[in-house]
């Protein structure tokens, strides 16, 4: 782990919601540049909490967050992190609030200080890249669930992040959108962390899979070794599936 290639590093993070039991307990985690990681666990296990802590949306009770080698402490540090790390919310409806798709995608670049013309150009390019050409004047609120998800992804990618955090990106989506997202993620040259309760999806998009157990991150194994992994859990949280990875994409 070369110092310079580390994007995010969480050191001894503790977190609990007001009045609740600890969600994260002495959690340590590292995302290196270009690494594609999955985190599995059922709802309420603290996966989303971890992502929110990285983005500065939640404040850990103790521990250090480092991004790009520097400790992240002040509000300004987090502003900087947010410019460099893209975050895809679980619910696309939480992420989109402009009347049209174009405005929604141009919102980030405008905040980064781009001119309206530039922002528009970047937005159009991103749409094209995601095969969403022709969507620019569509009313965001009226898109289907799958379309909203893709547009939400576009609002993140347009900011040219150095890494992505994706929170349950496929819940309830139709198979077409699912496959589009998987293809897209596999073609990205930046690293990402995907949090999900769907093993299948993680296996198709990430290399290393972790799980959150008792507030800590545990390495579960290489995603291509899925099968052996499942057996360890047979009677417990996860169930047993046979999958031929190559047949699915």
């Amino acid at each position, binding site marked *: 782990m070369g110092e310079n290639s580390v994007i995010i590093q969480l050191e001894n993070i503790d977190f609990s919601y007001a009045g609740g039991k600890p969600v994260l307990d002495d959690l340590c985690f590292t995302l290196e540049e270009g690494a594609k990681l999955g985190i599995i666990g059922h709802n309420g296990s603290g996966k989303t909490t971890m992502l929110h802590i990285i983005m500065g949306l939640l404040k850990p009770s103790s521990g250090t967050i480092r991004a790009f080698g520097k400790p992240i402490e002040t509000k300004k540090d987090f502003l900087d992190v947010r410019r460099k790390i893209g975050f895809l919310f679980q619910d696309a409806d939480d992420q989109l609030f402009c*009347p*049209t798709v174009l405005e929604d995608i141009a919102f980030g670049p405008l905040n980064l200080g781009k001119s309206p013309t530039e922002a528009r150009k970047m937005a159009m390019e991103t749409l094209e890249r995601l095969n969403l050409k022709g969507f620019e004047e569509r*009313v*965001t*609120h*009226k898109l289907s669930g799958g379309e909203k998800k893709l547009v939400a992804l576009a609002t993140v990618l347009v900011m040219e992040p150095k890494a992505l955090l994706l929170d349950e990106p496929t819940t309830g989506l139709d198979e077409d959108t699912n496959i589009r997202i998987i293809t897209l993620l596999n073609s990205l040259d930046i690293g990402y962390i995907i949090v999900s309760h769907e093993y299948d999806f993680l296996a198709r998009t990430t290399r290393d899979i972790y799980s959150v157990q008792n507030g800590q991150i545990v390495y579960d194994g290489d995603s291509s070794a899925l099968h052996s992994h499942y057996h360890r859990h047979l009677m417990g949280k996860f169930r047993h599936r046979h999958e031929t990875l190559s047949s699915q994409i």
Partner: protein
Amino acid sequence: MHISEGILSGPVLISGIALAAAGTAIGLKKLDYDRIPRAAILSAAFFVASLIHVPIGPSSVHLILNGIIGLILGWGAFPVILVALTLQAMLFQFGGITTLGVNTMIMALPAVFCYYLFGRLVGKRPHIAMPAAFACGALSVFFGAVMVGLALTFTEENFLKVSYLVVIAHLPVMIIEGIITAFCVAFLRKVQPDMLPGYSKQTSFTPSKETAGD
């Protein structure tokens, strides 16, 4: 935009209550039971939106939004604003019991007034709709400030200068409310035009509208 307890005279308080009761009665008549949930939940959104602090120069102001609530709810603005003010009093102790009538009038009367003035224009072409929405947002705040001034002046003639100051202090808020109302209307026109008045009439001949009368 509200007046605290203990400032206004008895006659002003009583007139406020009587007028607000009349406005609320009209508003409630137009809201049958089936539309109560809709008015209530829009009112909750209005309540939350009016807590937003918007930066202006080195300071910030919170939004009033009675213009947009007038556009969306028409006479329904009276009960909805009455209820929002009651909740504000219960939760934050802003306003109060004796001033509830006056404060409802301060916000709701301009809302309904601007609804009649601009309601039919916001569904028209953008170069009419946006300025109309701006005027609606700005004027509903302006009229509200004037109402505050009137309530103060009717209480005590010597409050006239205070009243001028109140109106002047609201000028920057007026502009911001105008801008926000204009963009908000632009948003609703694209996303959910049926929330705005006059939208369905969009196709009719626009210039002859006024002569047609009600």
